[in-house]
């Protein structure tokens, strides 16, 4: 084979590799909230098992990326876990597909089991600084919070009310790292998506009410936040089918089994 033929075949091969072997499926891309991403992936996995003609890809990037991609068309569906959608999302149609309860957690070694709403407020504002003021050990309280803008944080602060986070509070940027931090520091307190509470951290009762699924669904336990799916314009086509699936009993069951709450809870 002459050099020219070799070059030509390499070029053709490269082109094939780059452009793929041809797509015969429609693709639906979701993007946005990293908190909802694992659930979206699970739902996509299940959906594609019975619907062979669609490819669903789930990307992360955060709720802001979710809104931006829905607006720009980079994604057909944006995911946002904010308490209130900002004005950038005004042109988008939104659907609540799940909710998330927020549990207040401390280190398992902490003897405290309950806090009132007022006590929580004062701790996060910096008015109460030592555990002994709420009936615990004589130790300074390490307050850990999520970052500004986080859906978990906004719902926590909105529902407890009047929180201006004290300046020396630690800030971590995800549920997983909050859990790690609290499990490593015996004097810490923070809040966490209730589906992620495990034996490493101890959930507290708020005003005597346990953060269980029943209590959150019924509204007895106060702190929860919505998960929005955002679409530009009318919801139609394959995107509509997938969203319908998520809202169906099967989809909602998956959501519940994996630690989130169904959409129609309070």
């Amino acid at each position: 084979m002459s050099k020219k033929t070799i070059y030509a075949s390499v070029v053709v091969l490269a082109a094939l590799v780059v452009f793929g072997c041809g797509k015969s499926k429609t693709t639906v891309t979701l993007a946005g909230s990293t908190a909802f991403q694992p659930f979206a992936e699970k739902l996509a996995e299940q959906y594609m098992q019975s619907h062979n003609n669609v490819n669903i890809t789930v990307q992360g990037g955060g709720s802001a990326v979710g809104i931006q991609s829905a607006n720009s068309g980079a994604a057909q569906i944006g995911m946002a876990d904010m308490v209130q959608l900002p004005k950038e999302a005004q042109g988008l149609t939104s659907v609540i597909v799940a909710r998330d309860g927020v549990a207040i957690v401390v280190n398992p070694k902490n003897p405290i089991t309950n806090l009132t709403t007022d006590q929580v407020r004062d701790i996060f504002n910096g008015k109460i600084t030592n555990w002994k003021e709420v009936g615990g050990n004589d130790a300074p309280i390490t307050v850990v919070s999520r970052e500004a803008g986080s859906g978990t944080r906004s719902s926590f602060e909105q529902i407890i009310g009047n929180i201006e986070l004290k300046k020396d509070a630690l800030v971590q940027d995800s549920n997983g790292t909050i859990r790690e931090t609290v499990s490593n520091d015996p004097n810490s307190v923070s809040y966490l998506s209730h589906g992620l509470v495990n034996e490493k951290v101890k959930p507290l009762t708020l005003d005597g009410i346990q953060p269980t699924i029943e209590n959150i669904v019924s509204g007895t336990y106060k702190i929860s936040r919505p998960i929005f799916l955002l679409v530009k314009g009318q919801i139609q086509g394959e995107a509509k089918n997938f969203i319908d699936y998520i809202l169906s009993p099967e989809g909602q069951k998956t959501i519940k089994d994996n630690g989130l709450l169904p959409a129609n809870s309070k």
Partner: protein
Amino acid sequence: MKLVGEKGVKRILMAVAFSAISALLLITLFIINEGLPFIFKYGIKDFLFASDWNPAQGKFGIFPMIAASLWVTFGAMIIGAPLGVAVALFLSEYAPRPLMKAVKPTIELLAAIPSVVYGFIGVVVLAPFIRSYFGGPGLSLLAGCIILGIMILPTVISISIDSIMAVPRSYREGSLALGATTWQTIHMVTIKASKSGIIASIILGLGRAVGETMAVIMVSGNSVNIPHAATDSVRTLTANIALEMSYATGMHREALFATGVVLFIGIIILNSFASVALRKRTAKR
């Protein structure tokens, strides 16, 4: 078979260099475009010197973050640079060649460990250690400096080794022939000859430290206050950007990009000092 002449090669190389530099220019323009308008809107004094960062209320003062970034970078440099150069010297001048050949790639391996992994080790091992022995929450400026210092080691060590090894043997042999000990040769001859490369390695390493986000977010605590002790929790400029970018829209987002601009300018200032220092040294020769 000559496909292109000498001039042709020069033109091709120029085109290549041009496109590379254009790409870098593009990024620079991007950052400036996204961030500069905000600085003019909000007022540069309030932005840089106020200590109140509260996006929900439209307050965007980044002074605590500037202080934190300065301290963290400084601390990382104090830990990483001398350690790195020392190791580079030892491996190139004193260690047997096969040892150096085995150790260098292993150290470069450290560069491939994702920063989140460093962060996790920092949270799980370093922070509790600091909390028990030094007080404070553990997630602190000190933790940030140590982790960053470790993270820049591969860059400093690798590039310094290359630089030192490139010093011609004749330099060393000349010095030894004049009766100097190995150490005297090192600090009077070899280091001077490889100075440019060593400083380049520290600058690149420092660059990496300043720009590091993930690990810093995980171990430094991210409180928005000016540090008074090494055990205080701090938030660097990069941490500020990365923490809030995923939820930021509108003015908040612009403020974060403006933080990027400040960072960029800070890096430019840092590098200016470095290059001035470098020029002074080479001029003396």
